[in-house]
């Protein structure tokens, strides 16, 4: 690890480059628990089916079942991890072939799962954080009449997410990919009686679909190029393919990733998705689903390694979102939306790291893992606040909550420490790695990462001080108190992760060594000394914290947002005009096109049909007039006929 700790503790940061290992073993060969790892998915599927089909009969115990079917896979995951750690590096990728899935002509996609160090990390993140959030939800949703349904949807999400990370081919990954999208749709729109929730859910799904176009195209290109969509075969043959095609595949996959991970230009749905219950925001829109894009890119590293252009685009997307998300986070007064901006920004970090290629894949996953913990912690704490403030989210009506919600304040502060990167907490390790890696590859990206770190410090301090410090600005009707233990205990667990996750990953469980066989690793060379980087970073953090503290903790915060602000603030409050752009560029032209086509179909296409019909009947009405019933008319017609026939005869004789 090229982190501060490592620079201090180790004498050498010269690390060897590592090539990825593509070998896999079948589940049968691996034996033991590996033959059963499909149970990881089966449990939540079972829970979902029971809860959704069972209906109201399961209301009484549904939440317990829902939680259990996530806890059990977590246990299995831990057991698998221990098993896997005991295996040689080239024996760690296990493929379980279950049945022939889609076979059409020369297209085949098996129902096959793959458990390797990368997916292992995800399995533990999903089931671990997932379990905690399930437990939290028991308390958080206790008053909701549809709590059982909520757990059913959560289980659906867990199952789909696990399928996403365990799939052994892109088509099956697609199933998980859309499955989490569906779960997100259902959960964002969980309170469907609110129009805003329904609209937000739809928006999220549709924008994700735009990304799915990319995934579809990527898979199609893979099939026509490699004749297969399975990971091993695609990765093995990647080198033989034409560079342009690989770049196209990379860009297509990037499009998919931007949709799922709320990166520019498909970022606009994430803020609206905060309409969902807070546990959903924590689990899906912070910790797991939105990071699926990062997973996709890292998983496809064999392709991206061969497509430097695609990789550079990933980097650009990452940097842009990282900064823009942070800017949005700085200006939003809605606690959850501010956190959502932060999520965008942090995933931007991951994309930046992934965009650095083999030098950054590992750090992307590292940061992802850290982010999963501290962001879940932050969201759950925010949920705890919201739960006790009558579902309000306007930070301008919070303040001084530390006096009544001690535990929540503590957990939020732990998350604050985790995300800002104060040594020696989570981000200190993961973000520094990214910063250094970026500096070593692309100084511009490096500077952006440092700047974004400063912004992170600013908006987190802003949130912290506006919510928990300063003066009370509560509305009349709220009487905040601490949340019940069923909520606070998971928060405490997650705070522990936010505080010590980084240390654990670096010193106890060497994540880099664990992942490099999958992702490969190429160390970079820093243009300036390590310590200088760290000093600059910490200085930036300090500036950010100080600015925000002076602005929001020491001065009074007005209850309505001030009007005379800089244009940047105005833009940031409006999420950098993302909705306006989408509306102007796609929705309005789309509506006009639709309206025109409806008109065209009625008047144009069907008009021709109806016109023909009325033309025929009109003609027949005209012809009907010839049948006027007057014998003399008929006689005249006969004369005309005689005349015509005779004329024809005569003319034909002449001719």
């Amino acid at each position, binding site marked *: 690890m090229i982190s501060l700790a490592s620079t201090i503790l180790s004498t050498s940061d010269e690390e060897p480059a590592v090539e990825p290992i593509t070998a896999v073993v079948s589940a049968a060969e691996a034996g033991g628990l590996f033959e059963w790892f499909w149970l990881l998915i089966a449990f939540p599927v079972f829970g979902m089916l029971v809860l959704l089909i069972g209906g109201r009969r399961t209301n009484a115990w549904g939440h317990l079942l829902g939680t259990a079917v996530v806890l059990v896979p977590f246990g299995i995951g831990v057991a698998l991890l221990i098993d896997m750690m005991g295996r040689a590096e080239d024996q760690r990728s296990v493929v379980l072939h279950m049945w022939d*899935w889609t*076979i059409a002509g020369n*297209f085949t996609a098996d129902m096959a799962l793959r458990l390797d160090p990368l997916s292992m990390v995800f399995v533990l993140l999903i089931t671990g954080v997932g379990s905690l959030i399930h437990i939290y939800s028991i308390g958080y949703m206790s008053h909701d009449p549809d709590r059982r349904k909520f757990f059913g949807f959560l289980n659906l999400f867990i199952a789909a997410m696990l399928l996403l990370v365990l799939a052994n081919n892109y088509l099956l990954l697609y199933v998980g990919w859309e499955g989490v999208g*569906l779960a997100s749709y259902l959960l964002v729109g969980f309170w*469907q009686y609110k129009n805003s929730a329904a609209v937000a859910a739809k928006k999220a799904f549709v924008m994700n679909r735009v990304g799915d176009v990319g995934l579809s195209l990527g898979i199609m290109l893979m099939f*026509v190029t490699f*004749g297969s969509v399975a990971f091993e075969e695609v990765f093995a043959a990647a080198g033989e393919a*034409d560079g342009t095609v690989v770049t196209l595949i990379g860009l297509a996959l990037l499009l998919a990733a931007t949709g799922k991970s709320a990166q520019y230009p498909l970022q606009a749905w994430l803020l609206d998705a905060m309409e969902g219950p807070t546990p959903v925001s924590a689990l899906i829109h912070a910790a797991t689903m939105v990071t699926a894009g990062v997973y996709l890119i890292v998983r496809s590293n064999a392709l991206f390694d061969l497509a430097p252009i695609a990789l550079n685009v990933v980097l650009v997307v990452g940097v842009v979102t990282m900064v823009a998300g942070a800017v949005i986070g700085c200006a939003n007064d809605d606690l959850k939306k501010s956190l959502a901006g932060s999520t965008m920004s942090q995933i931007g970090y991951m994309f930046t790291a992934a965009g650095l290629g083999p030098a950054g894949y590992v750090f992307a996953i590292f940061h992802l893992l850290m982010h999963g913990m501290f962001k879940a912690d932050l969201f759950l704490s925010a949920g705890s606040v919201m739960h006790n403030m009558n579902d309000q989210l306007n930070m301008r009506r919070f303040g001084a909550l530390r006096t009544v919600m001690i535990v929540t304040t503590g957990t939020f502060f732990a998350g604050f420490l985790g995300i800002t990167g104060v040594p020696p907490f989570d981000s200190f390790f993961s973000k520094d790695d990214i910063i250094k890696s970026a500096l070593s590859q692309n100084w511009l990206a490096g500077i952006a990462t440092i700047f974004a770190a400063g912004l992170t410090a600013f908006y987190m301090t802003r949130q912290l001080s506006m919510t928990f410090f300063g003066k009370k600005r509560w509305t009349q009707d709220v009487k905040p108190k601490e949340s019940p233990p069923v909520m606070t205990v998971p928060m405490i667990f997650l705070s522990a992760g936010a505080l010590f996750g980084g240390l654990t990953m670096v010193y106890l469980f060497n994540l880099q060594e664990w992942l490099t066989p999958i992702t490969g690793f190429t160390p970079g060379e820093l243009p300036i000394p390590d310590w200088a980087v760290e000093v600059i970073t910490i200085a930036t953090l300090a500036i950010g914290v100080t600015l925000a503290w002076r602005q929001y903790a020491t001065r009074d915060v007005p209850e309505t947002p001030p009007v005379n602000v800089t244009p940047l603030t105005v833009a940031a409050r409006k999420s950098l005009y993302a909705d306006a752009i989408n509306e102007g560029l796609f929705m309005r032209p789309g509506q006009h096109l639709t309206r025109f086509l409806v008109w065209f179909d009625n008047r144009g296409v069907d008009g021709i049909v109806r016109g023909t019909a009325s033309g025929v009947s009109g003609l027949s009405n005209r012809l009907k007039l010839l049948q006027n019933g007057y014998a003399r008319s008929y006689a005249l017609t006969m004369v005309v006929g005689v005349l015509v026939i005779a004329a024809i005869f005569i003319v034909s004789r002449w001719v």
Partner: protein
Amino acid sequence: MSILTILGIIPLVGSVIVGFTPTKDVARAKIIALVFAVATFVVAVVAVVGFDPNSAEPFQYVAQHDWIPALGISFAVGVDGIGLILVFLATLLVPVVIWAGWNDVEEAGEQSPGQTQGNVRGYFALMLVLEAMMIGVFVSLDVVLFYIFFEVILIPVYFMIGRYGTGRRTYAAVKFLVYSLLGGLIMLAALAGLWYVSLQNFGGANMYFPDLLSMDIDPTVQGWLFWGFFIAFAIKAPLWPVHTWLPDAAGSSTPGTATLLIGVLDKIGTFGMLRLCLPLFPEASQQYAPVIIAISVIGIFYGALVAIGQSDMKRMFGYVSISHFGFMTMGIFAFTSVAQTGATFYMLGHGLSTAMLFLVAGYLISRRKSAQVTDFGGVVNVAPVAAGLFLIAGLSALALPGFMTFQAEFLVLVGTFERYAWVAAFSTLAIILAALYILFMYQRSMTGPTSEGVKGFKDLNFRERWAIAPLVVVLIGLGFYPSPAMNVINPAVERTMEWVGATNPPPAIADATAEATPSDSVEGSAR
């Protein structure tokens, strides 16, 4: 007697019995209809189970009897995988529709005042007749026999729309009939041409389909005959721009009729293309494939965009189907086994998902007495099961992975991509539109605050739920385990490809390794 003949006779017998039950005894008529429909389904399942996918024979359960020997017309039946899938679809949907549409006629009567509510048994008798005809189309091996079923099928549907529908049902029924008859007329001309060609080829007329495959037809003649058949099938399918009867028919018929009409009956169009157009006129098919692909792509987007702008649910589903039929024809005329398998799979999936859409929407419409989306709102709060099933139906229509429609749509796109990369890439954008029209409609009708007219909705009852359940099971079951269907379809498609003389483009990597110049593979495959 072939099991296929039995399959066709059972519903016919049933329809006669239903038709002769006492007028007052409506419930008994319904039960008899259901019993016969289920019996047909059971026989169909027996046929499906007994079907040997690996058989060397192209057609199974073949039976051939002389009918009009002088004209070389025989009563010949038999199925391949494609026909079998569609027979399965038809026989599955009919009992479902009867069970789900138990009170369709009465409810349609309530919706449009002045409609006679009597003679419910006529509706069910017609439905059984329709089933027999549908089976007849899918199992006919004689082209003339196929044509006869193709035309006769109009009669029950005409009455089912015109007599038992709602709204402008007479207009819709006549429009449907005139459109279809126009297509049938053109097909009749082509059929006569084909008959003459067979006379020339064999020295004696012979309309037995497997024999016709060995004919050698002049390319110009092929072109004419191809278009003759194709136009008829395009109207039936329906393809843009001969689609305008479909929204009217869908909007004016009972949910059950609409289900059978769009779910099964329209498949005759795509089935006909796959069964008759391609094998009989291979050169013409390949020659005109680009034109048809273009029409299909227009249809895909046109249907989707117009669907977004619809305010009537049933009409909207009609347009959605136009979009989906675009996918099917695109798959058929892409001439890759992947795309054709996908298209066949799509036929099954579309049938089931459309059935769900129409039936669940029918439940809601019969409660609200209106099909206008704006008349709904917040249904999910009062009837969660109905709204949930509606969502499931919608998701299957937008080809969410996990439903069999996903593989179908994806295979069509992949298969098309092999030959027409840019076309497929462009068509992929339609999946966004699919999400838009389904979710936009769902959002407007099912979510949000409960609207006045929706309050007091009863959630689905036992009958309504369990009528839909088989569809959900098959849609999701085949989504995760499609082998039973794929195993049957694949050999049939391979055979069709063989008859047409088309081969799959090899993967670019194989090209690259063979030529050792790994360049232009995308452009290469795009050609």
